[in-house]
């Protein structure tokens, strides 16, 4: 178990670094895909299969498709593969480093529990969604609908008036 955890953790860290380091936008996006998939592996290790599946299907699948689609459309408009340059390299890294240090220094004391979610995990999640989280579930539905409608109309080209 521990080995799988370290493996997926290392993989996702490396993939996240890839997002930072790749100069080609397409590669960066694919690197994020790798990161998200290895995170899904981690979630399975942590017995959060429900989230892991959602992560793979919706997050990795859905979002990345949208982003890749966006990259294709925009690079078609630009007519060449997209390269990305950087700005504020020094002050940005300094700030990120400082934030990282602040987070590590204030590290929460995670008490170790050997939790067991395995029994009826899927059932439990479904029941929670339909009872305690019912309102949130419905709101999420409305949010998705609004985003769909809004995004469709936003992406339509509009004459300069």
């Amino acid at each position: 178990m521990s080995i799988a955890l370290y493996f997926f953790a290392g993989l996702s860290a490396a993939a996240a670094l890839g997002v930072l380091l790749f100069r080609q936008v397409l590669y960066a996006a694919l690197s994020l895909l790798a990161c998200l998939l290895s995170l899904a592996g981690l979630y399975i290790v942590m017995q959060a299969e429900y989230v892991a599946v959602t992560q793979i299907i919706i997050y990795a699948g859905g979002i990345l498709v949208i982003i890749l689609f966006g990259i294709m459309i925009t690079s078609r408009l630009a007519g060449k593969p997209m390269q990305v340059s950087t700005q504020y390299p020094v002050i940005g890294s300094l700030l990120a480093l400082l934030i990282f240090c602040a987070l590590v220094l204030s590290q929460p004391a995670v008490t170790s529990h050997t939790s067991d979610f395995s029994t009826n995990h899927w059932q439990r999640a479904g029941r929670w969604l339909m009872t305690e989280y019912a309102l949130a579930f419905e709101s999420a539905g409305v949010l998705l609908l609004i985003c769909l409608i809004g995004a469709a109309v936003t992406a339509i080209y509009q004459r300069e008036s």
Partner: protein
Amino acid sequence: MEVNGLILLLPLAASILMVTFPVNRFPFGGLALSVTLAAFLLTWVVDPGSLQANWLQSGNFNLPLLFSIHDLRLIRLIIGISGLVQFYSLFYLSSSANHRSYFSLLCFFTFAMLGLATSTHLLVTFVFWELVGYTSYRLIGFDTTTSSTSAALKALLINKVGDVCFLIGILMLASTGLLSTSNLAPGSAGTLPLLLIFVGVVAKSAQAPLFPWLTAAMAGPTPVSALLHSATMVAAGVLVLLRLVPLLNDTVSTVISFTGGVTLLLGGLLAIFSYDIKRILAYSTISQLGLMVLAIGTGAHASGYLHLQTHAIFKAGLFLCAGVFIHHGVISGHANPNDIRHFSNPNGWLKWSWVILSGSLVGLPLTAGFLSKEAILHDMMTFSASLSLFVWASIPLTALYVGRVSYFLVVKKTESSPLHALLLPALLLSLVSVTWFVAAITTEAPTGWVSIIISQTLVIAGLFAGFRLARISFAEKSWHTNLGLDGLYDKKMPQLATAWGRAGIAVDRQIIDRLVHAWAYITVLFAHLTSWFDRAIVDLTLVGGSAWVVRFTGQIVRVPMSGKVQGYLLWALFSLFLFLVLWLLL
């Protein structure tokens, strides 16, 4: 009781009516005048008493609307002078000006000033204080020329500094429950709130060092100057100060007295060296307000209040006289109608009004000014002999500039022309001044013959010296330059000395000569210093400095405003991080 409220509401109603009046061409002046007259007549119907209504009462927050008409004379003065100024404006204002807004502002001003004078709760007073300030801002900038607009801005700014301090002071007093004048107890408030309120008074009543707005405000129409910047509005500060008298402690009193004393002398000195009639009168107002503040600070508040009233009469009158001169100058096409050297006298009546009113200013007998000035002098001598030196010094100083101006205005030949309507208000005011003296001399006669004799001697001496001084023509602002200063030392000073001597003071000529030398030297030096102060400290530091601060901080703010969204984010996250660090350290 209802009548009391009516007096307040009539001008307000008239003002609102004029603003919302559907017709553009309408005798707005006539409307304003008749309403003011009605309110004036009503003052004979009212019985003095208080008027109370609850404005807001919620939870622990309570705002009672408290008004009290305790002194009908003050009310009549405010309404009366407003009425006269409105009458005067009817003839003074060109027909092309916007009569609607002008007269509605005048009516609104009457309302605000009445509210200020009668309110007995400091928070309510503050509301009216702000309204008075706003109206004056509009009226100073009425001509919408560059100079008057900037003058209006200057007035607004300097007054705002005072207002803020005033409000903070009020809020601090509120925590001790001392806002209503009914429950004031001596010494129960701390020093700081009173000093803060006094800063408000300093700004509004044009005390040193916040006085430059008053001279700048002379860019407004002359009747406006007569109403606001001499007689009533600037008195608002003194009125508030009077209300705080029971609370004053020694520290505050000392600060008040010295501010008043310095202003008294400063205003007088500055008045000597100007040729602009409105400027001279403005400096004179500053000086007289200083006298009132000084009197209140020393404890002579009854006589200070008396002087507030008599000053309102004669200063309004003097401004209205000056307006006639200026009006005449404008009609006959002078390039610089405000310059006293170019004045020609259109009418003999004007001369006599001027004589009576300026006599009142210096405190000659037979005028109301005599009563108040001698009362102040007498009270000051009893309360604090050392501080009364300020007053003693100011007496010849006042006489000096009054004499100088009067020389130009009175000694000149009289051109005969029919009595102009513009003259009536000034004549009426001089008449009031004299009647007041006659009516009150038996009841409110000042005591202490010695001080009266000495002061009158000083006045007469000063007046004659002023006449002599008038013959010396220094080039305008020559006292700024070394050259003019040298000329003054080399040639004018002996002349001044001989003039002084010939005035007939029976003291050793040699001593007088030296005294005058020293006096003139100090005077010039002091005037030079104050003008430097006005330019360097007030104009440069306050005005220029604030502009620099605005520009500088604007640039700092602009750094993250480059339009780059990631720059925004960098700035935001960086400041968040700074906050985190502070947060964790605390």
